[in-house]
């Protein structure tokens, strides 16, 4: 089992990597961790707010990924999406368990991810493309997604907090997600 730790993976390589994970192959586990350990941990830290919780989350994410590896289908989505979705589900579930409803009610602008300088070449490609794709969003759209994704706020909670109709919030969240995805696809193209 050998796979590159950097650069985009072909779906066949992703499938092979997940097969290795499924088999408990140590090299495959290390390769998946090398690629996605940091974004998973960083997201966990952002959502849960403590290093200890983020470490536990990271461990849970990889064990869950191993357990669910047989269900991974590269034709339905990328390994990064699959893994980050598992991570986010676990993080938000944990946030709800430990903090009752939702943690933050307001995301200040300095908590919203910054758009990067153009020379941050050391970033993993997925993160780099994602950060660049953020440039396509307005500040309001970035703030909205930040409150929902990192803050765990539902559309109804945002609607009530902002005094905006629920349908409007849902429409804005959907539009922001679609815009971000399109921008990311553009940024990933050579």
């Amino acid at each position, binding site marked *: 089992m050998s796979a590159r730790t950097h650069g985009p993976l072909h779906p066949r390589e992703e499938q092979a990597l997940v097969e290795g994970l499924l088999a*408990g192959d140590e090299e495959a586990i290390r390769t998946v961790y090398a690629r996605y350990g940091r974004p998973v*941990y960083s997201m966990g830290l952002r959502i849960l707010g403590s290093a200890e919780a983020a470490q536990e989350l990271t461990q849970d994410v990889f064990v869950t990924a191993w*357990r669910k590896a047989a269900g991974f289908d590269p034709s339905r989505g990328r390994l990064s999406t699959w893994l980050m979705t598992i991570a986010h589900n676990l993080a938000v579930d944990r946030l709800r368990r430990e903090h009752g409803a939702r943690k933050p009610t307001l995301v200040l602008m300095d908590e919203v991810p910054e758009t990067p300088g153009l020379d941050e070449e050391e970033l993993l490609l997925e993160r780099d493309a*994602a950060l660049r794709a953020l440039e396509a969003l307005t500040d309001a759209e970035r703030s909205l997604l930040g409150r929902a994704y990192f803050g765990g706020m539902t559309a109804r909670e945002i609607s009530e907090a902002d005094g905006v109709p629920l349908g409007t919030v849902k429409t804005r*969240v959907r539009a922001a*997600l679609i815009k971000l995805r399109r921008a990311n696809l553009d940024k990933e193209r050579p």
Partner: protein
Amino acid sequence: MNCPAVRDLLPEHALSLLGPLDRLGVQRHLAWCAACRKEAASLEEAGAVFGFTAPEAQMPDGLQERVVQAVSTGAAKESTIRHRMRFLGVAAAVAALVALGGFGWGAVMASRAGDAERRAQEAERLQEQGEGVQEVLDDQLLRPRDRLLFAWLVPNDGAQSDGWGYVVTSPGQPDVVGVNLVGLPAGVQMPVRVWLTGGGGNDRILVVRARRIDASGALEQARRIDRNLSGVTVMVVKDADGRVVLSGFLDAPD
């Protein structure tokens, strides 16, 4: 739940923000609706993109080794579980999960309760109770390549579930199917047969044939099947005359 209702919830589904009732409804719909599944995948991808934008954190020392050990230990542990124990354990665990609130049973029970807030609270409570058994099922009984599909079985003319069925597909091992009917409708002619069908409904597989039910009208059976059941999507219970008594979609539980 129809397509417009599901589409309305998909952005929050992609952001892991739905409560148990809505999440269950969406996932059931996505199990058979390719168009909504495509939209859901697209929004999930966007959610993952946003996740990558979290401020990069310094990785703690030793975390990689703990992750490798946790996954390796899990992989080693599963290989030591005996198949028969697993077979019996899965049947017992699925029954316990149903009793405790897994597989959305909380949602089903709560949907019969009163106001929306009480329904949500009841669903949350029952779902949490089921989590312990779910972990046993996941950690000790199901192997990583195993896939558990679960179906609430309902009569054609009613929304109330009258039983459940499950399928465990297991590469390299006989697959397992189980059915647990709480109470068959009066007047059902025996024997009843339980069939599984694939997405197109062309490949029907007879998995259970029961001549008798107990005094309360209940039936509980589990069997190993020497066929690959990985493509099945529907479980159907028919009476002796071939009439459909109960049916349900087989979904992967949360």
